């Protein structure tokens, strides 16, 4: 029961590890650094990008034969911006609470170069279905790293996961804190996100030698 052919499956699975947008293609770094101090924000951002990249890739792919090559970047940017604004406005009208959670990410999604990068590299040259899969795959790979970094930073930085204390209470000195453990507030600062991603790259490339740069 293969719904997806082998080539199509590869489109989704490849970006997860061997061609990960963040650690290999170097796309979407800014947002990966800005919002990963908290696991919840990482998850919300991943889902938003999944949506925008999936739909955006299809739209661009459908338009690929009529877009004038001279102004293709403008067209791509306008498509992303319009998509994001539409979603933002609709949410504000019908799901206000949700829109408040997302409003922080609106700007970050538009400027997220993973979206432009995939439009340019894939959607402009492929059909809608394949572009959709590529979008989903890349967004998932991106989200995977985001959630990983968010997990590490929130756990060691604030001792919580998704806002729930998992290591005990630092003020009451319960749980781990009773034996002298301290939160590493440094983890919450953005430079640490860079270092965590650096370490993820290290681990990933030690496991797969073919990715090592000369």
């Amino acid at each position: 029961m293969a719904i997806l052919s082998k080539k199509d499956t590869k489109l989704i699975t490849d970006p997860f590890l061997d061609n990960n947008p963040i650690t290999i293609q170097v796309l979407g770094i800014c947002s990966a650094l800005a919002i990963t101090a908290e696991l919840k924000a990482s998850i919300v951002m991943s889902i938003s990008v999944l949506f925008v990249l999936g739909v955006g890739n299809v739209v661009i792919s459908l338009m690929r034969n009529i877009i004038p090559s001279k102004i293709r970047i403008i067209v791509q940017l306008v498509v992303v911006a319009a998509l994001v604004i539409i979603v933002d406005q609709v949410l504000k009208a019908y799901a206000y609470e949700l829109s408040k959670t997302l409003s922080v990410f609106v700007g970050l999604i538009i400027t997220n170069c993973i979206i432009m990068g995939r439009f340019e590299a894939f959607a402009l040259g492929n059909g809608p279905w394949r572009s959709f899969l590529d979008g989903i795959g890349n967004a998932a790979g991106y989200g995977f790293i985001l959630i990983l970094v968010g997990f590490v930073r929130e756990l060691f930085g604030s001792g919580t996961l998704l806002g729930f204390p998992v290591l005990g209470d630092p003020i009451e000195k319960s749980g781990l804190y009773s034996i002298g453990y301290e939160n590493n507030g440094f983890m919450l600062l953005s430079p640490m996100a860079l270092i965590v991603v650096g370490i993820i790259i290290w681990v990933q490339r030690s496991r797969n030698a073919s990715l090592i740069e000369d």
Partner: protein
Amino acid sequence: MEHIELFFKSIFIDNMVFATFLGMCSYLAVSKKVTTAVGLGAAVIFVLAITVPLNWMLDQYILQPGALKWLGAEYASYDLSFLSFIMFIATIATMVQLVEIVVEKFSPGLYNSLGIFLPLIAVNCAILGGSLFMQSREIPSLGLATTYGVGSGIGWFLAILAIAAIREKIRYSSIPAPLRGLGITFIVTGLMAIGFMSFGGMLTGGDEEKKAKEDVLSVTEQPLGNLTTND
């Protein structure tokens, strides 16, 4: 004085790369060699210096609530700020492509060294970030907006120049193989960002506090003075 303050602030304290982490993608991807880094950095300064003032005018005269007053009183109630993203980004993309065409026509030499970076710039979030910060920080005049654009550009230029120089040196060090290239660049950038945080300390430690105090005094002392005389 205002200009100098904003200029240095946008280079060091609010450095695009190290303080707000904008424009990271091209920063990491195009910093293998100093020469290419200089090219991209120069292009970023150039584009920021043009687009920030341009978007400032757009914001001031079209987008802000009540900005359409100059068209007549009946337009004063319009609020087009929901269009800021799309307008800013369209301006940037248009300017980048215009600059590309002009440079290609009139200075092929410059085009050869700068041209390949221009398409990269339209997707550089530092550029849109510059305009959005200009809007949210409510920069009051066109002159200051230009200063801010140039300053942020120079900040970005310095950052990419520094990392490119480090990467050229690091080539000769014995780094664990899997960490070579991108991995070590990430970690070095993280360390540099921690270094740059010291500039932020300069701001919050001195000037700003004094200024805030002065503001508070001027706001509160007067009404209270009145009251004590009443008593």
